[in-house]
């Protein structure tokens, strides 16, 4: 019997196939775009902020989609304990918001300190990015718990 070629097997890995691969491409591409755009401003706001928003969204979606089996187990348990859809959503929103805020906190702190401890438009944009991070982290979870397959997971 002819042995399958290892080369075709390995080379097959070079082709991005998953939705999460697309997200990785988007994040890296956006980081590159950010590096390029930081030199431009529109109406006093650096275009780099635009790409910050655009990179927070796929990064949080990617984090939420990763380890989905474990997250599904957690969601199944929370419902079994009497939790509601909005509680599960809120839990994931907070996680995404916290992750984004931790990542952005050095820049947010710097912004607040350099403006004499006041909140300016740049600080608000950074906070908005963290809120969007929460929303996009909770999105896949909400989709999962509302799907027809969710209740099927309680069956062995």
């Amino acid at each position, binding site marked *: 019997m002819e042995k399958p070629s290892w080369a075709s097997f390995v080379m097959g890995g070079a082709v991005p196939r998953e939705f999460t691969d697309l997200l990785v491409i988007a994040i890296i591409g956006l980081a590159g775009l950010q590096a390029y755009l930081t030199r431009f401003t529109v109406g006093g706001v650096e275009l780099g902020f635009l790409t910050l928003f655009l990179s927070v969204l796929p990064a949080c979606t990617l984090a939420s989609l990763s380890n989905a089996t*474990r997250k599904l*187990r*957690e969601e*199944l*348990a*929370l*419902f*079994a*304990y*009497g*939790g*509601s*859809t909005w509680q599960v959503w809120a839990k994931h929103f907070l996680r995404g918001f916290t992750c984004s805020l931790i990542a952005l906190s050095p820049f947010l702190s710097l912004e607040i300190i350099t403006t004499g401890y006041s909140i300016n438009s740049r600080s608000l944009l950074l906070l908005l990015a963290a809120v969007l991070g929460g929303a996009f982290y909770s999105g896949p979870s909400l989709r999962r718990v509302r799907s027809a397959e*969710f*209740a099927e*997971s*309680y*069956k*062995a």
Partner: protein
Amino acid sequence: MTYLIETTSVKMEYPHSDGVIQLYDEGVSLRVDPGDFVAVLGGSGWGKSTLVNIILGLEKPTSGTVHFSGEDVTRASFVKRCSLVKTGAVFQRPTAVPQLTVGQNLNLALSMAGIPKSERDERIRESIAFFGLERITRAYPESLSAGQRKRIDLARALAIKPQLLVLDEPTGDLDTSASNLVMPLLRGLNKDHGTTILMVTALPRYASSAHQLLHLKPPGFITPSKRIDR
């Protein structure tokens, strides 16, 4: 005295590549009164777990109604149903938050059921002792056997002292000695504490404890033009 649960002509259909699978051909009509012990008996794939999901509000029936304490909850969530009848649920697949230890899982379940903090420790201690989980209280669910996780589910469901306990194959994943402990426990809960029990099982010997027995029939299969057999 009002009933806890009443289902009327509940039917369920699932799309299939060649047509539609229909569960509960004649519709499930069931009334569960306070203090009842009801067993639903049926083979694999006959819709036992689906019926549990329908009763708990996790799946919506294609037709028919579900009432909890006189209120139509056919389209309502599990949370809404729990507010009408305090319900503990044990599913076929063990369910616990993987990031929390056994003790923390029980604490979370009690907290979500609205049990005051002052009562939680005592209830957790009781439940853990009852199911012999003392040695694994600090363990994480994923490091435990399926049988141990099943016992955690039972401990968690009972710790809230529910009016109604819904169990999907409560002895599944348990070895014979553990299974032999569970059925007398359920009988005791029902007889001594008045806990209403609704249990689905494939094993007739476990259904023999029940006051009321519902036999499910094998599912039918409907094609778009004609109905074939069962």
